[in-house]
């Protein structure tokens, strides 16, 4: 590859990288990746234990979240 093309290639890679990180942050902030995090945690810390399914996990998370004060005036 010649020099300008290489630079473009690097630039595109940086943009993709940035977008990917931004997406990961957004998913984390909104709770979109909560199940993946839970799954990773269970597999790492409690490998033998039963893993909740996505639907059951999501339901229980919502119930837990809305059982306490989670929104303010």
């Amino acid at each position, binding site marked *: 590859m010649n020099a300008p093309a290489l630079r473009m290639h690097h630039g595109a890679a940086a943009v993709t990288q940035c977008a990917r990180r931004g997406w990961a942050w957004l998913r984390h902030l909104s709770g979109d990746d909560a199940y993946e995090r839970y799954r990773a945690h269970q597999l790492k810390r409690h490998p033998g234990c039963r893993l909740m399914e996505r*639907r059951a996990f999501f339901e229980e998370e919502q119930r837990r979240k*809305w059982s*306490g004060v*989670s929104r*303010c005036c």
Partner: protein
Amino acid sequence: MLKKIVGLMLAVIGGFAVAGIALHRHEPINALWIVTAAVCVYLLGYRVYAAWIATRVLRVDPTRATPAERLNNGRDFMPTHRAIVFGHHFAAIAGPGPLVGPTLAAQFGYLPGTLWILVGAVFGGCVQDMTILLLSTRRDGRSLGQMARDELGPLGGVAALIGTLLIMVILSAVLGLVIVNVMKHSPWATATVLATIPAAIIVGVYLRVWRPGRVLEGTVLGVVLVLLALLGGGWLDHQPQLRGLFDYSALTLSGIIIAYGFFAAILPVWLLLAPRDYLSTFLKLGTIVLLAVAIVITHPQIKMPAITPFVDGTGPLFGGKVFPFVFITIACGAISGFHALIASGTSPKLISNETDVRLVGYGSMALESFVAIMALIAATLLDPGVFFAINTGAGVVGATPEAAVHTISGWGFPVTVEQMQALAASMGEQTLFARTGGAPSLAVGMASIFGSTFGQGLLALWYHFAIMFEAVFLLATLDAGTRVGRFMVQDVLGRAWEPLGRTSWYPSVLLSSAVIVTAWGYFLYIGVIDPNGGVNILWPLFGISNQMLAAIALSIATAIIIKGARPRYALVTLLPLAWLALVTTTAAWQKITSPDVRIGLFAAANDLAAKLAAGTLPPERAAVAPQLIFNQRLDAWLALLFTTILWLVILDMARICVRRLRGQSVPASSEVPYRESQLKLLAQAAP
């Protein structure tokens, strides 16, 4: 070195801006002055005061393992990057309070509100939030009520429970009242707000049945639906045969809101409450960013004087002098006890390092305070005459537009019927007179900011966008408050008879929901039939209850710091506590004993009773007078109850302080013992 230079520059610019605001008189001031002053004050507070409190008073320890690390379960306890915790915490604390309070307090002029928001936040609210967040983090994320029981004793625990339950009732009622005033005789607003309910249900079903847990997809779907509802409402408003279907009186709307609140409390969370919250959070954060950008781009002139004659207590929105009532009216945005419930709830379970409490606790509150500043700007850039015409009830200025403009112009704030009609027409409404509660005038202010930034032709759309944004998160808070209230009622009832405490037993769910909805529904109904608008009575009561909760939180913090190694640092929480005790007690005292019928609740009740007995009331007022009389007396007793609870907790705290200083025994600290953190600082917490 660079940090010091930046700090010095902040101090100089901030000092100029604050002095500029305070000394600027008799000519309009630009909103950018206020924005600059606010940003500099927050940054200075964050960099200097918060840093000092964190290291010296709270002695945050970066090597200490937090509950998120020790109790990590991959779900509610989980070490999380501080930027994410900041986002969660801010989304949880930012509610409609900082929008409504500053708008009402604008009747005193822009200066008292601005100064209190800045000083109150930097020395009070931010400190409270950060301190409670750290104390709860050191106690495995224990709740405020539990900490009160552990650190003060059983009295503190009961006080916190009663205080929280009552504040839920008053808050839900006042939010319901604000929504009713937004929607009354406005088919566009009513249709749009009602359409957000099926929109939320569709998102709920999507997230449960079709794509479980895909929160982002669901949110995008919901936001599209809600924006369609906004456009649909505008279309419907121009269909003569359809618009009548959504044209309701305030009384009918209050019935709808009460029924809605009941169903929201008994339906499963996934169907309505949780999806509505995704929409509300998204709209809330988006609109706040949009508003900040628009204010900087348009940098409007503030038209309200710095100080109005109403500081003497004759104000039309609510009676009472600037001291103590500006400090009661603006609770959220300066200091809000409710935040202590959040700071001792979800957030401490996510903190990965103790040093993060400065950003999460102090920083979030500073941002919330900035939202209050923006609301104040949006209210004060209106012509003062227009502001008062929108926000004053018919009972104060007269029922006809002619009477209203005559009264308001007589105060020295000229406004004409034609001006109000033209404004209402440009906002797509029939009338804007007597739309009390703060939300409509805020929407007019926001629409004019957005209109001059993004296109003047869309004013009506922007107005209803602002209305929908306010309504969506007023309703979200109402739902959540009712639900928490239901759980608390079940908790209390369960002590009398065990099955009533089971949160999934349907008869108990119905009973406890009915209890809590009846409680706030009563205050909402009274507020609607009150010819003075109702907000003038309910909002101060809400302020008093919220400040009482803040005083409980600060008492807990003070007691814990006193019990520690350096008791003198307790001044950091003791001084804001003393100030709150002073303003809350003075306000409650005036509400109870003042002979002025616009302030004193007993005086107003007796005055109305005398008029009723003498037969001098017009028939429509005589019909509701007995209920208003009863309610005013009830509110006076409530104010007395709040003040009593406040002083009981303060005395309980003082007892502990005296015992500690004399070297006598005090309840042992409930802090979890030190364990060293194994987390490489933050490295594992980033997504």
